[in-house]
């Protein structure tokens, strides 16, 4: 187990390096010029040139890449071009909201989706099954921001039950924390819920059609409950896979949700940085997301071996 884990961890290093190279070169070719934006509306072309030089934006590619990589390894992600604050500081300010949103979304989605999938599998072929699946498909057919606006309109503006926007840290109390995050989590979670419900149902169906299950069913009622749990355990592998893959989709949805609900998270930070071409921030954040994703996949792979000892690579 340990050997496998070590090998797996080592295998992620070249992947991360490739991501780093990718992220860095992506922006190197970018035509936008942050120097012009910084110079401002009343600047002369000379001002713009001077700012470019002072930001070091005119050095060759390899030097900039190695320079950057070396600093990153030492924990220095550079300073934002626009705010002059250290990128690591900006990221640490915004991790908590995004992390909270993700965790809450994941919890909500899994809590609803897995039972939904199980019920649909149990009542396979009936109206309930069709209904659950249809709801699931609706879930990932509507854009997240439309759902977000609708929820905000109904629950926050009209009914006044919940706040329209913002984020309250959990350190200020569980209830205010939940009040701010529940609408964004639901908006974001619908997509995720749909995916997980479908995969749960499909896997459960597959497992339930196996011979040993049929035998047990034929034998009598008492066995059913135990077998469902057993079936669920076998369904764990694909479910965990989807959770891992869906994580990337979550990040994408989080960008939009953070925008609609004004949550000061990493998603918005990244989008703002990309559109403004704030290179150090973009590099830092995309690298961070990718590392997180790689780690998530790593955990998923390691979890596989827990759920199914047959899986060894």
């Amino acid at each position, binding site marked *: 187990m340990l050997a496998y884990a070590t090998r797996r961890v080592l295998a992620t290093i070249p992947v991360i390096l490739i991501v780093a190279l990718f992220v860095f070169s992506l922006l190197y070719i970018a*035509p*936008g*010029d*942050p*120097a*012009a*934006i*910084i*110079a*401002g*509306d*009343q*600047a*002369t*072309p000379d*001002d*713009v040139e*001077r*700012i470019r030089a*002072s930001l070091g934006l005119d050095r060759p590619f390899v030097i900039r890449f190695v320079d950057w990589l070396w600093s990153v390894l030492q924990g220095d992600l550079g300073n*934002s071009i*626009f*705010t*002059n*604050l250290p990128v690591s500081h*900006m990221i*640490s*300010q*915004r*991790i*908590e909201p995004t*992390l*909270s949103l993700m*965790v809450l979304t994941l919890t909500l989605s899994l809590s609803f989706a897995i039972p939904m999938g199980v019920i649909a599998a149990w009542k396979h072929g009936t109206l309930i099954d069709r209904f659950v699946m249809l709801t699931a498909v609706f879930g990932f057919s509507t854009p997240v921001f439309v759902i977000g606006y609708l929820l*905000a*309109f109904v629950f*926050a*503006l009209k009914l*006044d039950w919940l*706040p*329209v*926007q*913002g984020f309250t*840290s*959990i*350190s200020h109390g569980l209830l205010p924390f939940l009040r701010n995050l529940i609408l964004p989590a639901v908006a974001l979670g619908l997509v995720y819920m749909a995916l997980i419900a479908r995969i749960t149902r499909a896997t459960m169906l597959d497992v339930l059609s196996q011979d040993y299950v049929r035998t047990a069913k034929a034998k009598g009622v008492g066995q059913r409950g135990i077998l469902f749990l057993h079936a669920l355990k076998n369904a764990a592998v694909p479910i965990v896979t989807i959770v891992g893959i869906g994580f990337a989709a979550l990040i994408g949805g989080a960008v939009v949700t953070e*925008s*609609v*609900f*004004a949550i*000061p998270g990493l998603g*918005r*930070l990244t989008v*703002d940085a990309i*559109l*403004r*071409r704030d290179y150090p921030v973009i590099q830092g954040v995309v690298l961070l997301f990718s590392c997180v994703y790689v780690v998530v996949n790593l955990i998923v792979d390691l*979890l596989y071996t*827990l*759920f199914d000892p047959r899986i060894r690579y």
Partner: protein
Amino acid sequence: MIDRRGLLKGTGALAGAIAGSVGLTRPSLAQGVDNKVLRFVPQANLANLDPIWGTQYVVRNGSLMIWDMLYGVNERLEPQPQMVESHEASPDFKTWTFRLRPGLKFHDNEPVLAKDAVASINRWMARDATMGVPIKRRLDALEVVDDRTFRFRLNQPYPKMLFALGKSSTPCLFIMPERIATTDPFKQITEIVGSGPMRFRKDEWVPGSRAAFERFAGYVPRAEKASWLAGGKRMMLERVEWHILPDAATASAALQSGEVDWWETPVSDLVPLLRKSPNIAVDIADPLGNIGALRLNHLHPPFNDVRARRAVQWAVSQSDYMQAVVGDDPSLWKEVPGYFTPETPLYTEAGGEPLKGPRNYELAKKLLAEAGYKGEPIVLLVATDLAILKAQGDVTADALKRIGMNVEYAALDWGTVGQRRAKKDPPAQGGWNIFHTWHAGADCVNPAPYIALDSSGDTAWFGWPKSDLVQERIQAWYAAPDLVAEKQAIAALNQAAMDHVVYVPTGFFKGYQAWRKTLTGVVKAPFPIFWDVSKS
């Protein structure tokens, strides 16, 4: 052997620990007493806080709280002494001596001295193209006379010195401690030590999301009543929080539900909705409004030919632009067949015929043909992330198509537009033919802060108009001895600028601001003013 249950438990604990530790390191926002905290939604993100280095309006607006100025313009744009106690100007306007008020302090409790003023002035002069640079060019010496006195020695007269020191157009002359003001003007300052009524809480700053300002107890306001940047800046609030909400629908909902108190730039279509709420007040933000601008590239065909530029004047409809920009409320906009701000003493319509009245597409097409336009693509840079600019861009594309021009609509963001408009290359090779912007009305009342009117060619603002006649007439205004002469000079200038088509004004428009009725003291100005505002 880790079993599944143990792993899940462990993960939960780890997650909890991470959340907890992040909570500890995250700056906790002080929850002030509610009626002493103002939550404000600014027009844009506060990305940095160096008002000399970065000249966006939103940076200037924040800086107005943090730093004080030597002079400050009042409601009539007349400079009034602020940090200065008295001044002396030589009759030839070449020597200016200033004496600072006693008891002025920085936020680190150090006294404000003449050397701080001198260092701040030097930094400002390097970056202010409209007034600072001309002063610098005439400067023989800027010297510290004693702790509270400093002197300008110019080799040519500069009568508008007080206005330069107190103007509200960016960059404003903010007074910073000497050690900070000696930072290269092309690099951001790293330390923020203010001289104004509010202290910036840098430890609470989350760029893109939130900024906080706290009252500085050591600030001594002047005795006079406040009027824009003049008079006593008395803070009634303990804390001002800026919440950055780029999504207009979210900002509107937040204002309605009371989560924020003041919205600087409500979208005009949402104003009727806001007005319906009994708790919200809506009014014109700035009586001096803004002038929209269609900026032509004078360096390359077809707009290097004045006839092609005039064709644009005859084709565009200011009412289309203005309705697209501000919506259905006619009280919010005016046509402006000229370059100067309406409802100000120097406003004139001399020479503005091409922009008045019904559009003349036939004449425009004829002028285009005369100029030799044969259907080459016209590169139109549109910043789609700023509603005002996108609206103008869409209307321009439509208007030019009507006179048979081949428009290449380049949908970009404001940052890229900023970079591309600086290029003098031919449009087909990374340059441009047209871009849009707007100028605050306060910056268009006369030629002094009016960078967009300068027609010196190569050193002019983006577009590089060149007209010796326009430059002559600008100088004529500077030389005008009284208001009557000024008006004549401006009329002549307007005529010349219109004939030459320095740029095409797209109209005059005002914006609203909206605030909850728990706030009293909100005034109309080109920038949000936080002193004398209180909350019940």
